[in-house]
């Protein structure tokens, strides 16, 4: 097919626009990477001399270490609880009619609309009212509330696409409901369950605003520790940590992409 001059113009302006937008998306990460190797304690562009000292500092700073441990624990426990509760709810919501079904759904999905600072404030006030200590379990509770809707969605989509005939075939072959659940339903839903839990864990690991309301010195998460660092110090330590963060997330995404194809997970295929 022969292309007209207009076609060429469209093609090229499209390419330039795309490159500009991708540049905008990548810009802060490139800049932060450059800044992380800046030797001086005060940022300057371009850096006058280079060093790795801020990376060393990032590893040594104790709040980051304890924040990472807290964040990993909270993400693991929170995602597990959200997976159990969310998958269970998605199942009954998909399969059954029961009293207050819609109300329950509205309440559980409401954190998608309620701003995180409101969720944090609400659970903070609630825990104070019932005199719960501000332990790590309070942070986990906040995270479960926030990530649950995403697990429910992910599992619900898998269930909607699930071929009920598999279960019916298994039932006709003598499988009790529990046997069918364990040998047919669960194994076939596994990709949806895993991606839901993974998504929940990532969201929880990154959650900042609501956490800020409910953590204390002992339970602070990595994002909160990072926020507190920026407020106190202006050196590029956080730039170094950001680079590690970006690299870790990108590596993980590439891995997920290999196994699941992100297009499928995000429904843009």
């Amino acid at each position, binding site marked *: 097919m022969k292309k007209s001059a207009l076609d060429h113009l469209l093609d090229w302006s499209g390419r330039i626009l795309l490159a500009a937008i991708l540049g905008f*998306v990548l810009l802060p990460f490139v800049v932060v990477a450059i800044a992380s190797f800046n030797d001086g304690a005060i940022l300057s562009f371009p850096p006058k001399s280079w060093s790795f000292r801020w990376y060393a500092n990032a590893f040594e700073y104790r709040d980051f270490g304890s924040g990472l441990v807290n964040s990993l624990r909270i993400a693991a426990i929170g995602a597990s609880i959200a997976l159990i509760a969310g998958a269970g709810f998605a199942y009954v919501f998909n399969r059954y009619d029961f009293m207050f079904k819609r109300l329950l759904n509205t309440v559980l999905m409401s954190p998608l*609309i309620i701003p995180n600072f*409101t969720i944090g404030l609400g659970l903070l006030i609630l825990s104070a009212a019932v005199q719960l200590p501000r332990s790590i379990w309070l942070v986990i509770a906040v995270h479960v509330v926030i990530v649950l809707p995403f697990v429910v969605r992910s599992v619900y989509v898998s269930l909607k696409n699930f071929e009920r005939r598999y279960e019916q075939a298994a039932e006709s072959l003598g499988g009790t409901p529990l046997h069918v659940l364990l040998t047919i339903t669960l194994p076939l839903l596994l990709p949806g369950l895993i991606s839901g839990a993974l998504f929940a864990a990532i969201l929880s690991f990154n959650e900042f605003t609501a956490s800020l309301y409910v953590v204390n010195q002992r339970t602070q998460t990595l994002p909160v520790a990072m926020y507190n660092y920026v407020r106190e110090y202006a050196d590029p330590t956080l730039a170094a940590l950001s680079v590690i963060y970006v690299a870790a997330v990108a590596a993980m*995404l590439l891995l997920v992409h290999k196994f699941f194809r992100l297009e499928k997970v995000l429904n843009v295929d």
Partner: protein
Amino acid sequence: MSKRPFLGWFASPSILIAFGIAASFLAIVQFSLRAHVPGALDPGGFTLDNFTTLWKTVYGKAFVTTVLLCWWTALFTLLIGYPLAYAMVRAKSARLRSAILLISLTPLFLGEIVRTYSWMIVLGNRGFLNATLMQLGVIDRPLDLMFTMTGVVIALVHFTLPIVVVMLAAALSHIDRNLERAATSLGAGRIRCFLTVTLPLSIPGIVAATSTAFAWTFSAFATPQMIGGGKVQTISTLVYQVGFASFNFPLAASLSLVGLLFTIAVLALFNTGIRKLERIGAH
């Protein structure tokens, strides 16, 4: 025959969590109706004072600022996100599509802090942008980007972009390509085909993406807090400040409550819009 196996077992954990959510909502409502006792964390008696206090300029200004931020962010995110989503779905090379997907989605999994901090380095007075522009001689004194609406909007657009791209790409990928082929076969050029077929069919996706952009911007805290630095006061930063600087939790609660009601109203508006649009494109 047991017609609903596992109902109790599977529903119980989520019912428990739903009670927790409902209780914390009620806690906010309850606190918003209590008096603030300076110096004490426990609230006083019941009163409507918190809501009358909200009429003060500082709170009204925060509302206006928040709405403006939402509007500008949504607008620019859409303008940037649509071409990106379009390229992500339609690029001819599969590798390019994958690359666009990974680049535009990675920020989604980075959290607010890393992204906002990176923008602080870009936008600061001695930051990347100002340093570069000054060295190139384009400007002779730094642009005011930190602590301004402009800076906050730039960072918020970056923050909101990935989710908007995902939603637009989902909408675009579900448009039947044969409709475009039909338009082309009827003599429509590429621009006309886009304007008369693709764009109209993606409007429900655009509205949905706009409403999500709005909700994200509204609840954004780290970006206005760190880049606005107290100069750009939004509802989210104000709630935090009222709560943790003055320990006036009743006022923080009423502020959040009004903010929440506002969000719900706006999203409901979007929702009716989406429903109407879906009815027009009735399948």
